[in-house]
């Protein structure tokens, strides 16, 4: 039971890390109805900006501020040079544009800041907390707890922002219908620039946490791989859904990784394992069949 709890808690905490990336997708989707293929690349760009600025001599706090400025400028530039031309185009056109954007960032970021994998030290050690280890024999790292705290703070802030601010409401209106939002005087360009800026900030937070854990390197773009099942489960339009989806994916994949292989081995023989790569997608497929809008997504009803 103790081991089960350890795996479960470890999975939930991993899920928080997935949710941090998924949040960026939700923001863009809410504002433009588009799955932003470039979110993983934005995480990479943000983290690379931090270590790049630090290598030039900036202390961590200044590097984070400079990286935020870079991400904001990037958001504004994306709106100006990519999205503005595509207003009222079908979502697939916007989606394709984000694919191009991902390749652009993946090429540009290492050209500017270098491609060598680098360490990012936030001063939070990824080691077990001795008190918990001694009392319950369970490994919980300080780093994971900080990540959970950061995610909780982000979600609360974003949920409040969407629900209670003017920009938040305008954002939701834009997501529903670009043309209708424009006709009632919502400045679409400003809204998109703001939301891409905020998505850049979320990418920066995710990049800091993932970069501190695994090093800052190209593989940060892979963090987006787990965001898709998280979004399918949580719903593409729900900020709290991203967290719940992340927790569900994190916990279920870890439990599956530990407890499924022995069952599969006894049934089919051979050596199973390494199922974390596909298990979240199977789970997401199941959700698509029974609840296509996800746990917290808006049910889409078309008038005939």
């Amino acid at each position, binding site marked *: 039971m103790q081991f089960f709890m350890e795996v479960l808690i470890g999975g939930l905490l991993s899920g928080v890390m997935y949710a941090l990336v998924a949040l960026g997708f939700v923001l863009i989707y809410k504002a433009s109805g588009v799955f932003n293929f470039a979110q993983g690349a934005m995480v990479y760009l943000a983290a690379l900006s931090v270590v790049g600025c630090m290598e030039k001599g900036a202390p961590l706090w200044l590097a984070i501020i400079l990286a935020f400025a870079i991400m904001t400028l990037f958001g504004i530039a994306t709106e100006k040079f990519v999205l503005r031309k595509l207003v009222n185009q079908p979502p697939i056109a916007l989606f394709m544009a984000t694919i191009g954007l991902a390749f652009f960032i993946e090429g540009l970021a290492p050209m500017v800041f270098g491609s060598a994998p680098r360490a990012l030290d936030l001063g939070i050690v990824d080691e077990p907390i001795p008190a918990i280890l001694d009392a319950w024999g369970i490994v919980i790292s300080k780093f994971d707890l900080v990540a959970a705290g950061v995610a909780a703070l982000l979600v609360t802030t974003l949920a409040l922002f969407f629900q209670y601010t003017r920009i938040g409401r305008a954002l939701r209106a834009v997501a529903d219908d670009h043309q209708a939002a424009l006709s009632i005087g919502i400045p679409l360009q400003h809204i998109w620039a703001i939301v891409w800026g905020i998505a850049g900030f979320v990418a920066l937070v995710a990049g800091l946490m993932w970069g501190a854990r695994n090093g800052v390197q190209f593989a940060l773009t892979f963090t987006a791989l787990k965001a898709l099942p998280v979004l399918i489960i949580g719903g593409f339009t729900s900020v709290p859904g991203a967290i719940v989806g992340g927790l569900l994916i994190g916990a279920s994949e870890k439990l599956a990784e530990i407890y499924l292989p022995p069952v599969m081995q006894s049934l089919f023989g051979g050596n199973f394992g390494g199922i974390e*790569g596909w298990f979240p997608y199977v789970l997401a497929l199941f959700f698509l069949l029974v609840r296509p809008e996800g746990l917290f997504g808006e049910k889409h009803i078309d008038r005939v």
Partner: protein
Amino acid sequence: MFKHRKSVPTAAISIALLAQGAIAAEEQFFPVLSYRVGPYGANGQSFFGGFVDYLTYVNLKENGVNGVKIVWEECETEYNNAKGIECYERLKDKAKVSTGPIHTMSTGVAYALIDKSKEDKIPLAMMGYGRTDAVDGSVFPYAFPLVTTYQMQASAILRFIKERGKGGLEGKKIVYLYHDSAYGKEPIVALQEEAKLNKFELTLIPVAHPGNEQGAQWLKIRQENPDYVVFWGWGVMNQTALKAAQKVGFSRDKMIGSWWAGSEEDTVPAGDAAKGYMAATWNVAGKDVPLIADIEKVVYGAGKGNLQDTSKIGTILYNRGVSAAVLSVEATRKAQEKYGKGKPVNGEQVRWAMENLDITDARLKEIGATNLLPQIKTSCTDHEGSGKVKIQQWDGAKWIPVSGWIEGNKGLIHPLFQASAKQYATEKGIAPRDCSKEK
């Protein structure tokens, strides 16, 4: 305006003709299937930087191989199999007149080229990666898993553990944590044979690609509480494993990685979590190898260095690239000795040379590569030529060798290659060569 319009197609045609241009008769061509961008670009930069720097060094220092200037063309594969094949197809025509061996530094691309390279008679070097049963040259005449293979390396790591512990391997618990791909799966059969022979308990734990999340695997390792973790990682999986080991409190000096998990690119991003970690290697790091110091002096002194970031000179992967180039140039030299000194050599001739390499410590000393890599002696039945690795340990800033050259259990491992090659020959309808008739 009209003039400008006319000049565009003219220039395009000229560039196309130049690109298609045949290699001059007095030059030795090397097709280089490199990767410097993409997920593993940082690793490729160091390796191919070292490779190209050595070719430049030979041109500058000796005016080529016996006066035959080395020329090369790089094609970016991005560590992608499809692009690797595309690059090969693009460069193979240029490699018709003369060619050095092709290095892909990718098991996937190497697998994809095994049959093609044989058809086109271009030797394929797979130094420390690729299809390992190609050790048996009777079935794989054009493929060379030179220096050592995954299986021999795994066996050498176990020998190191055995000698280090003094109590042997019997009764010990060893976890094999591996990238769930052909690369990670290749050594399993060797480890299982070793487990039977040495009576230790082996637990296999796979990690799904890309390996940036290993929480469950390391909790399992914590529960198993093994004596050692033998680790076959690549890319981000390496840093993640080191951090995850730290997280569950597993001692890094009981973790021994493969050579693809033992470069500065793997340990630096993991910070303090990497301290004490060990890994196998078939080449040493550092600039104290005379050849590496001389390359820096001659090539970079002449402003012809391939790397912008010169801090990579002397790193494990840079020195590995130099080692790969050393063997390739030595093969070219050997081919010239048989087929005509001072003349370019073709794929068939280089293939013969690679099958008859005899690079002794004396020769390594002449080149300035003493201890950079082990002695190599290949034959038709042994395309590996060495089977030796060193174990190195990360001290927080650099790799320090903690063993001499250790050879895996050849008597146990090579019959596995032969059995696998035989099966491959049956499946593909290949009639193996009679190695006793090869000269």
